[in-house]
């Protein structure tokens, strides 16, 4: 599995695997390989879903006018009223 894999790619591949397995005309050996790949993808996706909340970032231009990302100060966002 590639390190750069995104959730989106994984979900797309799962859909493909699902269709291939369903089609029924692939050899058993291949379907076991697909099964193994599918389980890995499922675990990858479950891992993604289990990841902790990311800190909110802020995009803006600095004094030199360069575009950049910095963590947002949470206190600037009002809480629930």
């Amino acid at each position: 599995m590639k390190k750069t894999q995104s959730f989106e790619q994984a979900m797309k591949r799962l859909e493909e695997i699902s269709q291939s397995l369903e089609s029924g005309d692939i050899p058993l050996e291949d379907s076991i390989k697909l099964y193994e790949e599918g389980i890995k993808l499922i675990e990858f996706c479950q891992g993604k879903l289990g990841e902790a909340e990311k800190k909110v970032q802020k995009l803006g231009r600095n004094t030199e006018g360069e575009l950049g990302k910095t963590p947002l100060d949470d206190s600037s966002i009002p809480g629930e009223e």
Partner: protein
Amino acid sequence: MEKHIYSVSSLTRQIKEVLETGFPRLWVEGEISNFKRHSSGHLYFTLKDENSQIRCVMWRFKAGELLFQLEDGLKVLVEGDIQVYEKSGNYQLIIQQMQPAGIGELQLAFEQLKKKLQGEGLFDAVHKKVLPPYPEKVGVVTSPTGAAIRDIISVISRRFPSTEIILYPVRVQGEGAAREISSAIADFNEYGKVDVLIVGRGGGSLEDLWAFNEEIVARAIFSSRLPVISAVGHEVDYSIADFVADRRAPTPSAAAEMVVPDRREMLGVLAYYREKFSQTVRQKISTGRERLENYRRSYAFRRPEDIVFQKMQQLDELIRKIQVAILHHLQIKRHSWHNIQQQLRALSPLGVLQRGYSICYKDGRIIKDVSQVQMLDLVQVKLSRGQFLSQVQMLGEGE
């Protein structure tokens, strides 16, 4: 009584005075006709009703405050001052402010911009981009202090916590807000490392939401390569931004729900896949096993086996035959070897000597004829065992 004769100028000046003081700042309602925008930016037109008309001028610095566009046939309410233009002897209305009659100016501006952008095709379905199904990074253009960002953060972190939210803080109302919003959209596109944008704010009056009805914002949304979800105000509020955006969300919370899938739903989908995959493979294995069993039992499968066995049997027989043949051959060979040995032995001169014969040599050569020797020659005689030297004493032919 002497006639008082005015000069044109003094008459005009008096008329001007009477008119301009007699009609202090006033409101007039009428319909615009002969509208002209001079290259200087000043606006010239005539205000008319069924019977009359009056010339009007709106200077550039006032015209710039207009939210809506002037056009012939537009009914307006204007506030202005009567002014006599002495050079041509005309009177005209210098307009200080203007609003549409019977409709709010914002409403009119909204309708006009909507019509214009629609005409240019900015709302066409062909331009609508598809939202990414599982964005990793979501860009948000809104106020850092508004309800919108708070709602978006809370919904996204509940539904898909690993999503990165990147806020571009802007003012969402008041002077300059539209420019800030549009350049934030452009900056996100330049930055590029987000999958989708949410542009919006919480609820407010039409004036509060106005920035999202400005052309500059509409153009920025239209030019965005990143898909844009508009989320302006409440359910009932429609903005120009909503029409240009790739998707309209009724509220910022709704935009957040639209932009990321629900974690629990996704876990359900994954569990479904897992179950389906296992089931399919299990089924395939059992079907395969069944089929294998059928093959094993079938004549079609046994036949090749039979052929193999038959061939093996044939092979065994052949090997046996070959072995017999080899043995036989060897025996024959061994037998004939024995004979040859015997023959050889019989033919050997040594064998002849054994039987009592001897060989005579003279000067190393075998003597086969009496002519080879003379009287008193020394002759070497070789026996089966040993040898001796003899002297010829007698010569004779035959026995």
